[in-house]
């Protein structure tokens, strides 16, 4: 849930998503779900010349499993809080595993 929780805070931010097939898409993160499927609005494909078939796509839904990276605006990430959230997540997992 940590990543889901984290990406939820990035809604309506501009992110760049690199897919496992090397396509990079920049757009406004509209929503994310528990599978980290991602909905992007106002998208822009970074090297469009390579992927002309995407030139008319305005928004897309990306299945979470095909995402390689999500590049985030740094200012929108509260690192300290994220560290703590990570600790809690780890504690939760440890608690569940026990």
């Amino acid at each position, binding site marked *: *849930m940590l990543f*889901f929780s984290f990406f*939820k*805070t990035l809604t309506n931010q501009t992110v760049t998503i690199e897919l496992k097939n090397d396509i990079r898409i920049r757009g406004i993160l509209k*929503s994310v779900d528990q599978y980290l499927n991602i909905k992007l609005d106002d998208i822009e494909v970074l090297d469009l010349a390579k992927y002309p078939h995407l030139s008319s796509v305005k928004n897309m839904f990306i299945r979470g499993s095909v995402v390689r990276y999500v590049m985030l605006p740094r200012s929108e990430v509260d690192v300290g*809080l994220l560290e703590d959230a990570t*600790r809690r997540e780890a*504690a*939760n997992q440890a608690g569940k595993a026990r």
Partner: protein
Amino acid sequence: MAFFGFDTTLPRDRNGPGARGFFENPDPFADIARANALGDDDVIDFEDTYDGLGDQLPDDQDEFNDDTFGTSSADKSVGRDFDFFGKTAQVSDAIGEEQVRFSLQNPNAGRVAPQPAQVPVQPTAPQTTKRSGYEKYSDPGYIPDLQAKSSVWGVSQKKPEPASAVAAAAPSRKMMSLEEVEAQMRYHGHNTATPAAEAFLRSMVEQPQFPSQLQHLQTLPDGFPLVPPEFIQAQMKQGHLPPQMPHPPPGMPELYGGPGHMPPSGPLHMMQNTNLPPQNLPPPGPRHGPHQAQRPQRPQQPQQPQQPLQHQQVLPPTRSSNNGMPVITNPQQLMHLTEEQRNTYLVEDAKRAKRNHKIFLLSRGNGLMTPQDKNFITRIQLQQLVAAAGNIADADPEAVLAEDFYYQVYSQIRGAPRQHPHQPLGHFAQTYLLQTGNRLGGHRRGNFQSADNHMQRMQQQVQRAVEAAKAKPKNKQLIIEGSLGKISFSNAKAPKPMLNIKRPDSSEGPKPKKQSDLSLSDRKSILTNLEGVYSALMAMEDMERTMPPPPEEGDAEAIQEHMEWRQKLHSLNQKLWRSLKVMEPIVPNSTTPHPFIAFLSYPKGKKAIPRIFRHIDQEQRVTILTMIVVHLDSLDVVRLAQPVPGEAQPSLGVREAIDLFSLAVMPCLLGYVNEAPFNIIIGLLGLVINQTHVQTVARTKVGLGILTMLLSRAEIVKEAGQASEHDWQQWVEKFNVLFDTLELGLNEIFPGSISSGDDMYVWQFLAAVGIGASPEQQQRLVIAVKDRVMETVGYSKTLPADMGSQRLNNVNLFMRAIGLDVELLG
């Protein structure tokens, strides 16, 4: 049809008592034929009714026939072209079986087949028999659907067919499709009671065996739209039947449909006509009972050649065809039976009556609720289920926080992100859905009709119920009493562990090996300590959130609760303190840093200090401060920050560490020092002088900062007059030592060259020294830093106005402390 002389009789056509299939029940309609065979015994001769009916038919309510069988013209136009099967089935068993399957799937096929001309001539109906093939419906446990559709019948009728056909014990039997039977019944239903029926009814009422006969009536297959038991009972109460009763009397319950569907005379009438041959029976004669067990929708086939064997069996219309019992179609038949037969018959009848009564009792509530009603009830139940589960979840914000910590806290800190319609369905959405209850989703599908919503809501509720059940596994393990093992449940969040190994308590973790060098394991242990500190911190922060309200006077329970809370907090505090390792013994001249100092050398260690300081008491704070002061020159921010010749400033990493230390740790220390009693300040200064290399410390920003802190606090205490004479004497002694030590290196405390920017902290330190210094010391101070002052003033004039004035202000801090001003330097 015989190919090459083979016996092509279909298996189902083979006669023989032993050849019965797995269907125990004989042909439900066999008794029609049987009754036909018994025709001589009937009081009412078949021929009487038959002729009359045939004449009546064309004039009377023919329009219903069209409804039932389709229009005649349509039938003709349909023709026989479609009936490929009819031809081919004669050839192959396999195709015959295929056809059975087909007819199972298309029960309506039978509707088309009957020739319209033949319709009037098929007044046969299933007879009230001992064994009708529908016994299973009389099973007390079986509650029949009294509104069964014809399609249901189509299925149930077909199944017993092959087996019963094979049995063929009854002579001259002819299978009728259910559709035909229904059609006949309906036909008779529309024709009001014939005189013969009336006569029968009357005779029936007057019979001494009336009750049993009545029960007999009720044993008609339940699915038939026949006389409801209520009706029979009503008749019994009246004691007689009205002579002409085409419809149930007013006020009678009409549970099973309109009057047209269940005229009382229908079944009764059919009883009279049991000896009528089915429609596609050829005329009686040697070929009587062309029992090919062909489906009635193939009426073109009755001419199929008979097997001799079959023929023989068919011919003599034996009476004891089934199980030696005659078929009683009329009360008066009983009179002709032997005593034994009659007794058996009556016993059977009583049994049946019992069963039927039970069915009646059970079916009393049938049809009271529509499917919609049932849906509604189910929905309410589910709603309560979900609400019960959901409320537990709602009441535990901590659980939400645990799952969604980052988002929740981030939202609180930075303000929730704009709400938008596509927000992922999380706890909030679920809560929202629960609160709105039955309005769920209504606003989105406002255009849809409510009937549609019904099922959707159901589905959603089921979904939520399932989710709630999934989310809250009641027990992670099930231990069945007496069993040796545990059954652990798994879900997506907590998969079933393959091995169940008990871990040692985490607090028993390995202690840091202080003796070893800064190896990986040492680093690891430091980081482990660090995480221990953080987990303790988070636990304490959680505790703070759950702090019970301050107890009121006399509220023992609240006080008790509060005490327990404090107890827990205290134990957490002890845990935190242990994890910090502040109290680890100081090993003099050790090459490895003290655990706490090592702790502080990590950025997250520095960041933890402000949080730690919020949760510890003053004594613990002074301990930490003392620890830092004692190890001042081994602090990373001091040790690594020593100016290296040839480099203007320390490396980037060190500068970041210094900045972080200044931002995170220093304010905490300052906050404590500003309230610290004077003797502690004196002691700390003494520690700096005795335990550390003052000149080294003074060459760093952090070291100077701490010195400034102590000096300025002492000055404030003095100004406030809180310092006792004795303390002040001690302070002055220490100060003098410090001053003498520092004087030689005063020029070296400035960072790099004059142009390297930030030297404010140095001027602050000098100011702090200058205030506390004696006039003689002030003079020495001015001499020591005079060059730097002049340089800075000169340099500031070359800078832009605002930067220049800032530098001058920094210098002025010091100058004013010793009673001077940069203006004087002109």
